[in-house]
């Protein structure tokens, strides 16, 4: 594997540079998605009737193919990272909103009553009781959203080389170096699996009261 990690200079990044770029382009949208879906999910829990329409909207957004999304946004944001990240953030909502709603709804009413009896206000109850109990469900959603986001970034290559590791695919074709394509696919897949493992670890650390063994999803 001589030079497996040596990239053509037109990529303007080292291998690790591209990995960093890829992670940023994939993870920022998920973070944005999480920040949006927390309040949205809370609204859905409070007012049950808005949950079905919210689900409908996120499903419709998710159905729109990434390439179509990207090219329409070019008109507003140019061929930039922002153009790639906005659709990814919107896609993450379809997984995160239901995950958070289910998680928060699964908190037993007795627990909520106990928190109230201990004098917790609504805000403190949300952050110290509901969110921690919902953590496993939320992280299960984050795992799906993160892994999909990491694999989707590569499509950004089609709109002016905004695909981070995906840009290697273009060079693999024009320079006839299949190894570059293999490298790109493998690296993206490995990044996805590593991110998944990190999130599992985070869940274990966040929920020390849960049994270590046994299957959660």
């Amino acid at each position, binding site marked *: 594997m001589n030079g497996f990690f040596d990239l053509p200079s037109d990529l303007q990044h080292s291998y690790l540079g591209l990995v960093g770029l890829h992670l940023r382009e994939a993870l920022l949208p998920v973070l944005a998605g999480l920040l949006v879906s927390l309040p949205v999910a809370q609204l859905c829990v409070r007012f049950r009737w808005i949950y079905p329409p919210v689900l409908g909207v996120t499903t419709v957004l998710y159905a729109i193919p990434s*390439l179509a999304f990207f090219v329409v946004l070019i008109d507003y944001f140019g061929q930039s990272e922002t153009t790639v990240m906005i659709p990814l953030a919107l896609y993450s909502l379809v997984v995160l909103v239901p995950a958070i709603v289910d998680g928060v709804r699964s908190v037993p009413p007795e627990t909520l009553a106990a928190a109230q009896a201990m004098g917790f206000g609504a805000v403190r109850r949300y952050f110290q009781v509901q969110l921690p109990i919902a953590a496993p469900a939320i992280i299960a959603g984050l795992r799906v959203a993160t892994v999909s986001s990491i694999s989707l970034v590569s499509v950004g290559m089609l709109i002016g080389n905004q695909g981070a590791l995906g840009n290697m695919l273009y060079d693999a074709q024009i320079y006839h170096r299949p190894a570059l394509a293999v490298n790109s696919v493998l690296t993206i897949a490995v990044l996805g699996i590593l991110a998944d493992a990190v999130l599992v670890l985070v869940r274990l650390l966040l929920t020390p009261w849960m049994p270590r063994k046994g299957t959660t999803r």
Partner: protein
Amino acid sequence: MNVLDFAHAFFNDSAHWHGYDGIPTRFTEHLTYSLEALLIAAAIGLPVGLLTGHTGRGGNALALIATAGRALPSFGLLVLMVIWIGLGMLPVMIPLVVLAVPPILVTSYEAIRSVDPSPVDAARGMGMPEARVLFQVEVPVALPLILSGLRTAAIQIVSTATIAAYVGLGGLGRYIIDGLYQKNYEKVVGGATLVAGLALATLAVFWAASRLTVSPGVRRGG
């Protein structure tokens, strides 16, 4: 000029409505590829998912397949296959099927697993053979989830088939890719509109299918 004007201009140009690069031809191509890939993926994923769900074995292996399926970048796989095999139908079909199998497989497994055990036991107690327990009790109850797995797969296929225009496949993605190269933004937006329309139509078809096939009792309970 905004996006709507571009789309308007694209659809009003009569040259886009006939010939080998006309909208009807491209639309039919896209639909054909997508259906073929979905049928192949369902033929692989459904039987395995139903069987493993029925017997309850292999859950961990399936969870691994699910993560691996999500982690593999569809676009990268597409380009890699074309570099290895060359242009044609096969290098495109392989990634489409590989990406569609995990959601179908894993969702149908989980769907069958999550069926309430008491009616299943009742069916067994009444002397139903295993095949009838699966098809007359478990599958009807699990149908909404099974359909949602197929829906996810179908949406991913439609979306990936769009990207496949980059490696020479026909279909609606052609307008986007060609338009980008020709710096013809009208064409790009027109193609994007059509693709989004097809994806929404896919959603609608699955919504209608679940209305028609899911038994009213199951729908009310779920």
